[in-house]
């Protein structure tokens, strides 16, 4: 538009010059067309000597301004953790062969009255309970091409190593959760009777019942032992229920002014499956009882996961027979340029076809959470 007005302005000037108009009349043509141009653009006259000016907006730059590319990696999800550590006894084993542990699960005989000149009868000591466990390797490897690592301009792979460490912990959490959620362990607890399992949903009264079951635990010689309900482990959906039972100054489900005397430590296990309202829960004892409900064995010298990388088999040289020097690990291996990482850990537990993973069944109590 501006070019058209300018052209028209010049044509008119030339016409006036051809007709012999004076310079003042020719100059007025320029001012008049400038006025028309400003009116079209909506710009008022600011100064008397203002010239015709280009007005640029983003719309004038379809490619240079309106196209914008920004790539950025967002942080991943925060994982829900399962703090299983108090539920298992940690043990360290020297190698991958089964280790044997013995536990005296009984005291010795009661004393007996002995009359005058009488001789005490001989007592007896029970044999130990033998349990075995071993460790196995748990690993996963990841291959990245040289091109993929080089093309990663947003640091997408930068947290892969920490994610690999997280996956090791997550796998271990699932492994521990499976100690007591597997069908064999549950079937065993059910077969042990009403002091080891129930059907009730998690309520204050049911926690009290479970506590009473623990109060009746006995050793192999049927003597009472100091078993106490310490932990309630449950489906994530029971968290609010557990918190309500724990934190309420009144008995939660009764909604009255009754004093709440129930206490336990709540541990959320995000890997327990169930459909509301039938959500399973477990009650476990603490280590003060001497009961070893479950064991988590680790290999000596390997207390946690390790992330390892295959060393590149490439070396840079300047002559065929000259000395070589190491290259950037991102170059990967000689054959394919693969960069190979592996996360590895070693752990294990007691596995028994009848008892499941329970080292001692006295430390567990299961509820299917089905009965209202």
């Amino acid at each position: 538009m501006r070019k058209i007005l300018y052209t028209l302005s010049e044509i008119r000037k030339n016409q006036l010059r051809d007709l012999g108009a004076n310079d003042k009349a020719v100059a007025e043509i320029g001012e008049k067309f400038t006025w028309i141009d400003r009116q079209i653009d909506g710009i008022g006259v600011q100064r008397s000597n203002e010239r015709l000016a280009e007005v640029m907006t983003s719309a004038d730059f379809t490619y240079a301004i309106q196209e914008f590319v920004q790539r950025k990696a967002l942080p991943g999800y925060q994982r829900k953790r399962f703090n299983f550590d108090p539920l298992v006894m940690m043990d360290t084993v020297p190698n991958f062969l089964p280790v044997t542990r013995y536990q005296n699960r009984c005291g010795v005989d009661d004393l007996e009255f002995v009359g005058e000149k009488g001789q005490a009868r001989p007592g007896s000591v029970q044999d130990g309970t033998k349990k075995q466990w071993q460790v196995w390797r748990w690993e996963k490897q990841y291959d990245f091409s040289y091109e993929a690592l080089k093309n990663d301009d947003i640091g997408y792979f930068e947290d892969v190593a920490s994610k690999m460490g997280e996956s090791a912990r997550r796998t271990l959490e699932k492994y521990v959760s499976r100690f007591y959620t597997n069908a064999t362990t549950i079937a065993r607890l059910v077969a042990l009777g009403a002091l080891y399992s129930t059907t009730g949903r998690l309520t204050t009264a049911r926690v009290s019942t479970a506590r009473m079951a623990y109060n009746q635990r006995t050793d192999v010689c049927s003597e009472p032992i100091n078993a106490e309900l310490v932990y309630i482990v449950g489906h994530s959906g029971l968290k609010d229920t557990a918190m309500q039972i724990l934190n309420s100054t009144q008995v939660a489900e009764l909604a009255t002014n009754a004093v709440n005397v129930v206490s336990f430590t709540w541990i959320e296990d995000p890997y327990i499956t169930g459909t509301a309202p039938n959500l399973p829960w477990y009650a476990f004892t603490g280590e003060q009882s001497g009961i070893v409900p479950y064991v988590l064995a680790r290999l000596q010298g390997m207390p946690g996961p390790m992330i390892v990388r295959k060393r590149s088999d490439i070396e840079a040289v300047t002559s065929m027979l000259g000395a070589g020097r190491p290259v950037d690990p991102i170059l990967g291996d000689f054959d394919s340029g693969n960069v190979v990482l592996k996360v590895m850990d070693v752990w294990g537990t007691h596995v028994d076809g009848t008892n499941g993973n329970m080292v001692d069944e006295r430390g567990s109590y299961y509820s299917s959470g089905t009965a209202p």
Partner: protein
Amino acid sequence: MARDLQEQIAAGVRDALAQLGIALPGQHGQATQTDYMEFGSDEHRRYLGLVLVDKDDDPTGYTTYTSQSTKRIYRLEDEIGVVSLHPGMDPEKAAIIVLRQKINELEGGPPPVPDNAPSLWQPVDQFATRVV
């Protein structure tokens, strides 16, 4: 199936030995376990603190609850415990809720093993098997 068969055989052997007066030491199972309590048994009922109200009994003064499934009438053995545990509240309201919960547990039978319960992990299924 195999496990059931194994347990049946083991139970049969234990029973046969028990008839001969031979007890297996150190066994902690259904047949010889001293603290075994059968679901729904009188022992289980007493453990839950429930009293079965017979037709000859007079439950006047007690809060009772009639089981929906068996039509049996129960009362709490120790209502004072409920009242002392929940001071200042309506005893009947507390008792009826606790009664219902206990009866559901008593008559609910053994808890079911969930259909989606994972199998016991064995190292034979070790390679490329996720722990789920």
